[in-house]
């Protein structure tokens, strides 16, 4: 009996020992709990050589391109820019005057507006992508480092230039910041400081880049955008020098046919454009569809105002009018933008760019040569009302008019002449609001436009509200722009 019990105990101990041994087998697998992701790369070990950095640089343009979706939490990048720029000018409006998008045309933008939050987040995301490249530049080969730095700084400057013009004083992240860095995220830096970075970044881009690309940053694109920066902050002489460098490089020219600027991609007039590919949800855009009658998600955005049609009638000429807007076939009291049509127009001889209009392939032009020529005039005008008769200015101005078929010689140019010409030449390309502000005409022109349309406009409406989301997150640390609550 005693022996039996002892045996039993010994056996039990053996059982337990075996089991502990078995458990140990499981426990010693350290890497069992660290499966590697197969469908993505861990960022820790990336950006180590030129090839990887190149993929990161391409990603900068993916950021500007934005996501083609109707998911409100996605970052849509430049695809929604027309709402916060053109639709706040006297050029366009919603077709129906309904919904959140109508806040822009009626100068009743709310701090909770989702498009404003989308644009803000999109462009800081672009800045983050650029800062990521800059943080890893030491891993680039000597031959590529300058190009990567130039492209990253170009993109960062471009993003800040848009943000500072739309929001005024803004948070300034010059490197990748952690969520815990609330000081950077919630401190509004004076516009002059932001412009210092923009100027410096564009100058680096000019030094480091050449003109190899149209869908990527180039020297000429940096020169042109930097010139616009200098026009904005009043450095007209520097602006003129930059623009004349582009003009004298002879690398760009005006397209003979106004239509071809938009429907013959990669043309000589285009200096910098964001590329899109049709019928491919990863690389297409949907703003073209939103501008039509109930083809996109909305019932129709960026519809043409009667005000801009009147301007076309007076200053635009037939060719530019024809390829800038058309009658809406479905609602014959309304007019649509013709630049960037996704589904073509048989009458105008424009072929569809995609099978599904919401997956449009039309590139978005950020800078083209006629903009450069008109900026050249603006630099020479140097903030004066004019008229001026400077022959260089007249030559640039006349070139743009000639291409539009308006060959009557212009003898002098006033600021108003320039504003009118820019309006019809660059209509619906997101320039009008910034032009009016830069030329000091915004308050008078938009004030009159608002009154005529039953809206109430004040100078406060020239800046967008800081998104309520950011104000909420900062718990009051971020101040709101005047006129918003």
């Amino acid at each position, binding site marked *: 009996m005693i022996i039996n019990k002892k045996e039993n105990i010994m056996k039990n101990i053996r059982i337990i020992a075996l089991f502990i041994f*078995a458990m140990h087998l499981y426990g010693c697998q350290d890497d069992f709990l660290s499966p590697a992701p197969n469908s993505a790369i*861990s960022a820790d070990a990336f950006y180590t050589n030129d090839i990887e950095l190149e993929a990161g640089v391409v990603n900068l343009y993916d950021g500007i391109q934005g996501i083609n979706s109707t998911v409100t939490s996605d970052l849509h990048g430049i695809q929604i820019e027309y709402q916060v720029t053109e639709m706040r000018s006297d050029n366009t409006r919603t077709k129906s005057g309904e919904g959140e998008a109508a806040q822009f045309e009626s100068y009743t933008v709310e701090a909770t507006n989702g498009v404003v939050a989308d644009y803000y987040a999109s462009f800081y995301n672009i800045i983050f992508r650029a800062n990521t490249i800059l943080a890893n530049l030491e891993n680039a080969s000597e031959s590529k480092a300058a190009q990567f730095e130039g492209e990253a700084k170009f993109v960062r400057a471009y993003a800040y230039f848009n943000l500072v013009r739309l929001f005024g004083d803004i948070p300034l992240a010059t490197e990748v910041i952690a969520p815990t860095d609330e000081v950077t995220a919630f401190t509004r830096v004076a516009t002059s400081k932001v412009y210092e970075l923009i100027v410096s970044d564009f100058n680096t881009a000019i030094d480091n880049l050449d003109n190899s690309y149209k869908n990527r940053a180039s020297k000429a694109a940096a020169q042109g955008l930097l010139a616009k920066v200098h026009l904005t902050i009043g450095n007209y002489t520097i602006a003129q020098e930059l623009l004349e460098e582009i003009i004298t490089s002879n690398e760009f020219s005006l397209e003979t046919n106004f239509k071809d600027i938009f429907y013959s991609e990669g043309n000589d007039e285009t200096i910098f454009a964001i*590329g899109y*590919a049709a019928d491919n949800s990863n690389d297409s855009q949907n703003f073209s569809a939103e501008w039509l009658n109930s083809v996109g998600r909305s019932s129709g955005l960026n519809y043409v105002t009667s005000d801009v049609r009147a301007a076309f009638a007076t200053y635009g000429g037939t060719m530019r009018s024809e390829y800038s807007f058309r009658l809406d076939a479905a609602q014959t009291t309304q007019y649509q933008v013709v630049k960037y049509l996704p589904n073509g127009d048989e009458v105008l001889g424009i072929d569809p760019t995609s*099978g*599904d209009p919401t997956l449009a392939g039309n590139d978005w032009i950020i800078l083209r040569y006629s903009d450069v020529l008109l900026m050249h005039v603006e630099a020479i005008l140097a903030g004066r009302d004019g008229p001026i008769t400077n022959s260089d200015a007249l030559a640039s101005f006349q070139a743009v008019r000639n291409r539009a078929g308006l060959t009557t010689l212009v003898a002098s140019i006033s600021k108003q002449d320039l504003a009118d010409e820019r309006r019809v030449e660059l209509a619906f390309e997101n320039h009008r609001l910034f032009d009016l502000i830069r030329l000091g005409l915004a308050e008078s022109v938009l004030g009159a436009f608002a009154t005529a349309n039953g809206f109430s406009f004040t100078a406060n409406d020239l800046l967008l509200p800081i998104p309520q989301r950011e104000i909420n997150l900062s718990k009051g640390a971020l101040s709101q722009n005047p006129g918003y609550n």
Partner: protein
Amino acid sequence: MKNILLLSKDHQKHIFVMMLMVLNVMIITPVFAQDIKISGVVNSEDNEPLPGVTIIVQGTTAGTVTDINGNYVLEVPTDAILDFSFIGYLKQSIGVNGRTTIDLTMEPDIEQLDEVVVIGYGTQKKSHLTGAISKVDNKNIDQIPTSRADQAMVGRVAGMNVQNSNPEGVGGAPTIQIRGVGSITGGSGPLLVIDGVAVDSEFWTNIDMNDVASIEVLKDAASAAIFGSRGANGVVMITTKTGESGKTKFAYNGFYGWQDVQNNPDYNTSVADGMAAERAANGELSPRSRYKELIGVDNNWQDIIFDGGNTQSHTISARGGNESTTFSTAMTYAHDEGVLLTDDFKKYNLKAKIDTKVNDDLSFGVSLNPSYTERRRFDGSTHDILRQTPWLPVYHDENTIQYVDRTVYPDVEVGDYALQRHFDNYDLDGDGTLIDISNTSNTNPAAKVLERDRRDFQFKLFGKFYTKYKLSDNFSIQAALSGDLQNTERQRWQGVESSRNGASGASLAVNNENKVHVVTQGFLNYNQTFGSHEFSATTGVVAERYKEKYSNVSGTGYEFDFVPTLDAAAEASAWGSFEREKRLLSFIARVNYSFSDKYLASISFRRDGSSVFGPDNKYGNFPAVSVGWRISEESFLAGSSVINNLKLRASFGITGNDQISTGNRLNDWYSPTALLSSRTAVVGGSTATAFNPQNIANPELGWERSIEFNPAIDFGFLDNIISGSVDYYKRTSDDLLLNVDVSGVTGFNNALVNIGEVTNEGVEIELRTNNIRTKKFRWTTTFLASRNKNTLTDFANSDGLIQSVDEKRAAEWISSVGHPISSFYGYVVDSEIPLEYLNDAYHPIGGQAQDVYVRDLNGDGVIDDGDKTILGSPYPDFIWSVTNTFTLGDFDLSFMFQGSHGAEVRNMGDQYLYNHFNSSQDFDPAITPDQEFIREKIFTNSIVQDASYIALRNLNLGYNFPSRLTSKIGMTSARLYVSGSNLMYIKGDNYTGFNPESLTTTSPTTYGYQRAGAPIARSIVTGVIIEF
């Protein structure tokens, strides 16, 4: 030894080691006394067969339950002592003494509650339970006409809230919460465990209620801690039926019935009512309104979209076996047509379970449960479909065709879908004035539903292989390999006529999901009794591997509707694929102890390692301890005629949560690292590869933890005429996993962190009464109620976090310490804007202003953020159910009322169904006073509505044919029943939507968002159960 648990060479080696171990033990283990098979009949005191009597071999947890005729069969050692027990009857202990037949008459007494309850990785006598575990009685649940087993759980367990929240029609998952929301990651539903193995919650659709032996819900942390990392939201354990040796028993349970919905008068519009209101106010109709009347159509779109449908279910089972091997098989076909236009759910389910004893010591078994479901969703949302106007016909007829604007729509014919735009530009008075009446460019609402086809084809398989080996009298070893597999193909076809864009809007999207979850587990069990000391202990290892693959392709460019295949597409417009893997490794130990059946204690420990956390935080420890005192077993209460059962128990435990749900499934399983996903951008006229950062890395990311204290009392009075329990609990969850909003300046809008602390505190009552208990008539009542208070007690830097669900409709939620995790936030309505200030108050029909005057709460004369306040809580604070069961001779009737109170929802449906968007409903800025006090309704409490309800959840009336009749036709039993669901449903007064339970899936910090919801189905079926 990498990847040891895969079916790789390493794995084979591992199995080999395990087999060696088993062999080794077999050699050293002596053979024990031979088991014999024993059977018999158990009758009640009045000689009626007594089904459900538990028979346990004393000193073990082995046992069985008598069937409907009181029969039982059991294999026991020749010298075993059997404990027979049943609620309301005295427990009897009978020595087998070599007999093979023991018939028994139970004597009524109510001292014993010795049911066996399934607990995590084991079983326990109910009388010895020290945690909060509710056992669900499967009586008649298999007769409830629901398409999913989880929907039948409504009102079954105190503290378990089941909401019919899915907006896409039949087959959609409800929202389940046990004891409130402790987690804020999105994964706040309980863990589902089938036959001891944790499975994905999708497997609720694999469960056939006919095949369920018992359902146990582990509510407190001490009970759930044995599931460690996944126990924080409670655990639902389902045990399926096992065959019994003896004659093979066949059974059929089938029902067929019909269902519909009650129309919602709040969202009913009609041309007649609209015109009447306008005439009453203005004395005449505007030209637009006269035109609407002229068209002569007055549709109620609810009647068209809520089309009702049939529902049916058929199950055949066969169970039986011989002395060494038993089997249980079942097959189910169910078809539920849903109550919405096009929604449909078909299910084919198969189950086979075999258990065999090789000898007295070694047994093994295998269980396989494949199922195939086909679900057609209601592709759309009620808010979108039903907002259209009553004057619009579905199709054009000879009358309506005459109003079509032929300039814009020259090709529209009779029989085509009618669009609102067709009716624009009509010269009503022949004076050349053209009238527009459309308020949307959308296609016909019926076309939106009928011309789309969205289906989920899902194949699921649950399989388990186990072996048990009895090492000695005290030790046994158990090893199991199990797996669950899900293969889902989702297809979404949008036909040529489904959108206003015609052929260019047609598309087919195909998504494939392939999920495999493999579990290997090994356990060592120990049972020992020394005098009055009873020990049972369990220790083991569980390793789990989840591997999931996803892919999708979309095609566009369809000219025709004929062939909705990818081949017919002109373009592939979107594509993608990814896979992810997650692993868990767990070490488990538990000791249960009882002294003299009076003093009870349980201690458990689980250490979990999860691959989803950072290198230094992979492991979490989850201990639990619980104690109990059965006062009724003390000598001073022995023989008391008043108190027949009284137990005090208290538990304390820690559970964890590793469910991360940020919306990016790839990142969720690799959150400590920053991931770069592959993208493309168009540069230089062609697409080039880009790599884009997806998330902000958080290498510190670790376990979310819940600590729960749960004192309780179980009682039975007056021969169990009144019995039940009261539980108090307080659960504190901290280090919550939150995908917190961060400034966009970081480049991201969210970052995953461990943050904050939330408590759920509450009381649960379960009360069962035997009101009348005579030979012919019985009436019992079950009352379940729970109160829960959810409080955010710490939110670090994020205290006061304001979030919104949809940037376009940015209604706000606040997470503020001292309040629930999320509260509705915004302005308080002061008054409606008088109709005379609106542009056109009577267009569109049923339209309402989108704006409202709000209150200047802080009295500073301006409306700004300072005037926002908390507008309500999305969490119910009181849920309850009352079930009454009557038995009169061969008839029985039971019905359950169930209710929920104290929650609100933010019903964005108002904005759509009342046409808030329409500019006709805007105020005229030229004449409207006090415009600075006007805000959009969606930012106010105007759409924060009472989500309370009281429902007659189910009703079951049955007739059991007497055995003298059934035996003549070879049946052992036959039952005929009528079963109904939601025959009565009362909503809160100010709730305007279709379903107060409906929820759009959002984060717990923006909980309680809905867009009118899909209505609750009201169904009635008749069924039959036959056994032979």
